[in-house]
């Protein structure tokens, strides 16, 4: 299949590849997807606890070009937003921005799920509910 130019741009020059310290209480980690399904996204955010603004974001993705591009775009979009604004990002916005074809819509869904999972994780950490599930690399977003 031929790819859109924005997918190729994000794939060739992915933004924010890497990892943040999973144990840092201001870092939220979301891991979604499954290797058998052919895509796994790890999206991490570093939040300023005073302002709730996402100051940094990193990702690592196992998946096709569209999955990598979707997660790269997601990190770009969440940076600088507060967590409520980031939660408002939808997969359809990602589909539109990257001109994803119908068979690749699930990549955008995964990216939205990854953002929500990372924010959920951050909130859990802030509430001191349970920080062990993240450290044990549970992928339940």
């Amino acid at each position, binding site marked *: 299949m031929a790819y859109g130019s924005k997918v190729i741009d994000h*794939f060739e020059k992915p933004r924010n590849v890497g990892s943040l310290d999973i144990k840092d209480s201001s870092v939220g980690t979301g891991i*979604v997807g*499954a*290797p*058998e399904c052919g895509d796994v996204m*790890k999206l991490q955010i570093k939040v300023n606890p005073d302002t709730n603004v996402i100051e940094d974001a990193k990702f690592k993705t196992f998946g096709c070009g569209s*999955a990598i591009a979707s997660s790269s775009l997601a990190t770009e979009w969440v940076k600088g937003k507060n967590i409520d604004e980031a939660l408002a990002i939808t997969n359809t916005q990602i589909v539109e921005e990257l001109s994803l074809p119908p068979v690749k819509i699930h990549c955008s*869904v995964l990216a939205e799920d990854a953002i929500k999972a990372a924010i959920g994780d951050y909130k859990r950490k802030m509430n001191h509910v349970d920080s062990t599930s993240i450290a044990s690399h*549970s992928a339940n977003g």
Partner: protein
Amino acid sequence: MINTKSSNLNSGKAQELKPSKTIYLDNHATTPVDPAVLDEMIPYFTQTFGNAASRNHRFGWTAEEAVEKARLQIAQMIGANPKEIIFTSGATESNNLAIRGVAEMYRSKGNHIITTVIEHKAVIDTAKYLETQGFEITFLPVDKFGMVRPEDVKNAITDKTILISVMTANNEIGTINPIAEIGALAKERGIIFHTDAVQAIGRIPVNVDDLKVDLLSISAHKIYGPKGVGALYIRRKNPRVRLSPIIFGGGHERGMRSGTLNVPGIVGFGKAIELAAKLMPEESKRLQKMRDRLHEALMAQLDEVTLNGHPEKRLSNNLNLSFAYVEGEALMMAIPEIAVSSGSACTSASLEPSYVLKAMGIGEDLAHSSLRFGLGRFTTEEEINFAIEKTVAAVKKLREMSPLYEMAKEGIDLKSVQWTAH
């Protein structure tokens, strides 16, 4: 006669082919037409363009002669009589005709057909269609190398079995099946035996008597001939196999395949198979050497690379590898200069990874990470060097981006992680 460029008819090597920007390592999908083949075809479009079925004038006779020459060239390649070869539009049609033709013709003798889970879709989907028509189909499994076990064939045979269809060599992993052994089993029980030899022809010796096959499908475009032309070998003696046609009309090809013959295509097919016969001994050695070098270099420069398919009983031009923690479509996207294919779901419309790799017991994660390199007549050492360099760099880059690689390196057992299915 129209002369195209002067090509080296003896070697069939196209020295004049300019290296294109993208190197082609997908020769299981299709092959370029050999210039020597094209040269043979050209006059049959514009000069000697007759209908091979026109019996009353020179145009028809010339076309018929050309078709008969090709029929002989093909028959000679597989140890058959020219009368046992009929031309089709390609191997999909040959497979359809062989299986549906036997099913309908021999229905009164039984309704059971044995085939395998790793066949080409042209066989599997024909068998599934027959299932809806009251036939019982046994889809045999394969071992971890993708090979069909003769005992499984033997155990599957019933009094109702009328046909066994097992491919000679698989298109994804290149594994070569024990066809002669299966052929002997079929013969012993008087069951018609069909093999799809599309990938094997021109790469390994294929002889219908040695293999004890009654029906054999081949295609021109996999052996440097044109697309849109294939053939079916149909045994005439011991036993004489009869087929119900699937295409009706003017009664061409002894009534088994009506339709005006694709004369230029058939001429090209004949030339292609003649060249393949001549070049095969040298070519298969040369390709295997390059293939092994590609394999060894990738294994040496990258960790966690696994071979899919049989380590030895495999087509000389095939290399199917899984690069753990990297998704196949992304990998292909990262090496746009190299044309290969992948068993990843993302490359198919079905969103399911390769059914062949799955049948071999390869996990879906590794099926998603597979890449198939298919070398061909025009593959050069420089292209292999280029493919090694680009593939190694792409795998390394994508692994840097892969959360799975990171987790594996941290010592996390990925199988113990509770993933979210989606």
